[in-house]
């Protein structure tokens, strides 16, 4: 049976050795004088041998889980396989050793890739213009909402202070809304888990700056009334914002543009298969319809038929969102992914992702509660409520999965599903894997009934056992410095 590697590994800062790494100009004489009171007195870190550092982190890595090890069914996160060729490409000197402020003539390769990616994303999003600058989905949201603001203010419409979001929305949506200076109005979903048109109608007003949704929504359900929604929103003078985290459910089948969205952000690290180890880096480009183009952050990448250039000439640009042009090395990988797949390949991605999801959904139905309708797009949310009777929570199920060498799904999200288990297999799982996954989930369902202690004591086969999270938050120890204190 599965067992994760266990190395009893000290903190690197607790170790101490001899530096074996030599620096360029290691022996240069330091003749400068730093003002006494600005000079550093002490630095409490240690030296280590190069080989000990390597061993330390190789061991640590063996105590971690990645999509290169097994199914990683985190709903909403689209943990798909990341093609290795992309890693090869970004390891080239012409990616790594390029400074962002280099003269345009010396970065035509970078600019070409960015330009092509802009074009691809326009097509995929059904949008008229794209900025690659935001570096994560939430950053894309923030950017998009600043554009919303700029748009309304530019029309001298200063009363639009509200962003409407459904209660099924990801936490970043309301948080981004706040950061952009808006008030968030949350509306309840209807009994089908979809946007409640009456609630939306009630919430919409001339204070509404935008309605922000993802479609398929976080339940994996396609909002069938999307055109009506768009109409309602636009009639009120508001904009419709597309949270692109769920693009893997519709890419190539429809576009946000077609559905009536004005703004969309893309989660390149999800849909476009760029690795984001441990939580990032991502990339969250934003596409907009024509009317919003004049507000995009500077620069976008232009092409005059001969050469590529930074276009800073954007009339009412909101300025900058991040320091430079976005997460270039992530953009390159997304570009590579799109090149590999091509137009019809991207459509197939969606088809397989949706097929896999519904296959898994049907396999698990009967063992786990499925709230709302059956047909899902790229993800499906079950509920663990039927195990309450055995004293089992979704968290226990999740922990037990780890014992089988499987990562758990996203849990307790979306908030509208009690004891939620949110699964997204993505297209890069074979039927064999899905069958194995379902088999384990079904086994756990019966373990929950027959041997609930097994779940409550899980995990046993991981590098450490269940962790006391409450204590961690009550007495936070956040650095070696605080340990020593």
């Amino acid at each position, binding site marked *: 049976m599965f067992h994760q590697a266990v190395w009893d590994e000290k903190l690197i800062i607790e170790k101490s050795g001899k530096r074996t790494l030599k620096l360029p100009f290691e022996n240069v004489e330091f003749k400068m004088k730093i003002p006494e009171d600005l000079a550093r007195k002490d630095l409490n870190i240690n030296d280590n041998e190069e080989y000990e550092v390597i061993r330390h982190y190789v061991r640590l890595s063996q105590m971690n889980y990645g999509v290169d090890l097994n199914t990683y069914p985190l709903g909403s996160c689209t943990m798909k396989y990341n093609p290795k060729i992309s890693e090869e490409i970004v390891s080239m000197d012409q990616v790594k050793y390029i400074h962002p402020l280099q003269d345009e003539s010396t970065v035509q390769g970078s600019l070409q890739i960015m330009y092509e990616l802009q074009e691809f994303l326009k097509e995929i999003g059904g949008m008229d213009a794209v900025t690659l600058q935001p570096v994560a989905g939430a950053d894309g949201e923030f950017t998009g909402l600043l554009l919303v603001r700029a748009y309304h203010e530019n029309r001298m419409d200063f009363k639009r202070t509200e962003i409407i979001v459904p209660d099924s929305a990801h936490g970043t949506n309301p948080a981004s809304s706040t950061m952009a200076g808006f008030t968030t109005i949350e509306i309840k979903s209807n009994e089908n888990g979809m946007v409640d048109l009456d609630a939306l109608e009630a919430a919409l007003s001339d204070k509404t700056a935008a309605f922000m949704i993802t479609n398929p929504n976080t339940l994996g359900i396609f909002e069938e009334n999307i055109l009506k929604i768009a109409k309602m929103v636009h009639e009120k003078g508001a904009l419709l914002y597309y949270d692109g985290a769920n693009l893997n459910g519709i890419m190539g089948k429809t576009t946000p543009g077609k559905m009536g969205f004005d703004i969309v952000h893309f989660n390149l690290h999800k849909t476009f298969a760029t690795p984001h180890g441990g939580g990032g880096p991502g990339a969250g480009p934003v596409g907009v319809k024509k009317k919003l183009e004049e507000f995009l952050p500077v620069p976008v990448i232009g092409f005059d038929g001969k050469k590529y250039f930074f276009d800073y000439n954007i009339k009412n640009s909101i300025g900058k969102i991040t320091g*430079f042009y976005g997460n270039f090395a992530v953009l390159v990988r997304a570009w590579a992914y799109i090149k590999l797949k091509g137009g019809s390949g991207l459509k197939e991605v969606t088809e397989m992702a949706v097929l896999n999801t519904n296959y898994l959904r049907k396999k698990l139905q009967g063992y786990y509660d499925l709230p709302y309708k059956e047909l899902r797009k790229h993800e499906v949310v079950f509920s663990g409520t039927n195990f309450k009777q055995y004293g089992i929570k979704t968290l226990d199920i999740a922990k037990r999965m780890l014992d089988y060498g499987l990562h758990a799904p996203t849990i307790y999200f979306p908030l509208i599903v009690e004891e939620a288990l949110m699964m997204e297999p993505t297209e890069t799982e074979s039927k064999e894997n899905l069958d194995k996954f379902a088999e384990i989930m079904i086994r756990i369902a019966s373990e929950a009934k027959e041997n609930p202690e097994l779940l409550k004591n899980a995990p046993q086969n991981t590098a450490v056992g269940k962790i006391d999270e409450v204590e961690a938050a009550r007495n936070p120890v956040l650095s070696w410095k605080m340990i020593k204190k």
Partner: protein
Amino acid sequence: MDDKSEMMQFLGINSLDDLFKDIPEEVKIDKLNIPEGIDEQTLRTEARNILAKNKSFFDMPSFLGAGVYNHYIPAGVYAIASRSEFYTAYTPYQPEISQGMLQTLFEYQSYIAELTGLDAANASMYDHSTALGEAARMAHSINEKMEILIPKNLQWQKKSVLWNYIKGLGMKIIEYDYDKKTGKIDLEDLKNKINNNTAAVYAENPNFFGVIDENVLKIRELGKFIFIAGINPISLGILKSPGDYGADIAIGEGQIIGNPMNFGGPLLGIFATKMEYVRKMPGRIIGMSKDRNGKRAFVMTLQTREQHIRRARATSNICSNEALCAVFSASYLSFLGKSGLRRLAEINMQRANDVREKILSINGFKNAHESLHFNEFAIILPKSEIDIHKHLLSRNVHGGYLLNTWNKNAFPELGNAMLFNVTEVHSDKDVEKLLNALKEVQ
């Protein structure tokens, strides 16, 4: 029967289209207007052909800094960060099976805490610029004041990002001046601008001109605002930590410590603060705890600050971040250790100042600031910025940052001026190439 057909049969569907019947016909598209996919080898060739149009540092030495720096990155850093288990992971939502990443991020936090002299760091922000935006918001959330004071010689991109981060709060940016001769903080001016409504004062050391500015030591005494220090993490090998001179928050660019330049991204926002403010801090934070058997274990903590729990009232909207860049930095700092970081800082400072002197010895090139510099310095040029820039390019060497052309003509007192960065990666040959080319324009 193949897998796909079996699955379709299991679902009782005849066509994959059945899975998309919930999408209204009116919004469906036939196909994406994107060329057919290509195979990996063809992509390999195409990517090489396209990227060959770039000039890397090995093709053409460059003396650019101004936010992103070219430092030596040990090959071991790449070896570590390219471990599948690290780079194909996501946020460690299940800590028991993610101890490797969690411990590494905890180590990163620990390094940053030691370097900055503050209690705690988060596991990453997007970059230095957004870290500044977040720090300003955090200051406001601590003291509810409305003004942030920033140095007049702050790079325009950072100002712009800051503005986007705080305008929603109705906050105001106020610039304080610097001494034209030394490039250091004009303390008088700063003092005059601090008032009851000052949420935060932001100051950098070394500053945008590369000047080492001991005036930062005097800021804390000027009032009760939140003091945000902008740092260069390598410089902290030899410079006093912000914690030691009273900063409440320290931010900086983590690309500098172990991440490749990558045409400007991904970068890594460093963010550290004092324990008393930790619950106002944005971003993921890793904490130490114990597992059920009492064994030390690491876990994401203080999550109630974050968007997935507190939603509209979260400290920030940040979710995906730059964790893998923090892995680069943690391993980088481990390879260097204390002696390496200190030495590296010294080498940078010495090399840059040597090159500075050599440039100043060329006829027509003048000193911009009579100060001590870390690894960056401004030079007043004998001719137009652009002309000299182009001349250098024609000699296959990339000069520094065009201080007025590229920074909205913010420094009229300097006229034509270039900001040069010199680090340990610039060989004697690289320097010679620059000097020879500069001599031709004197």
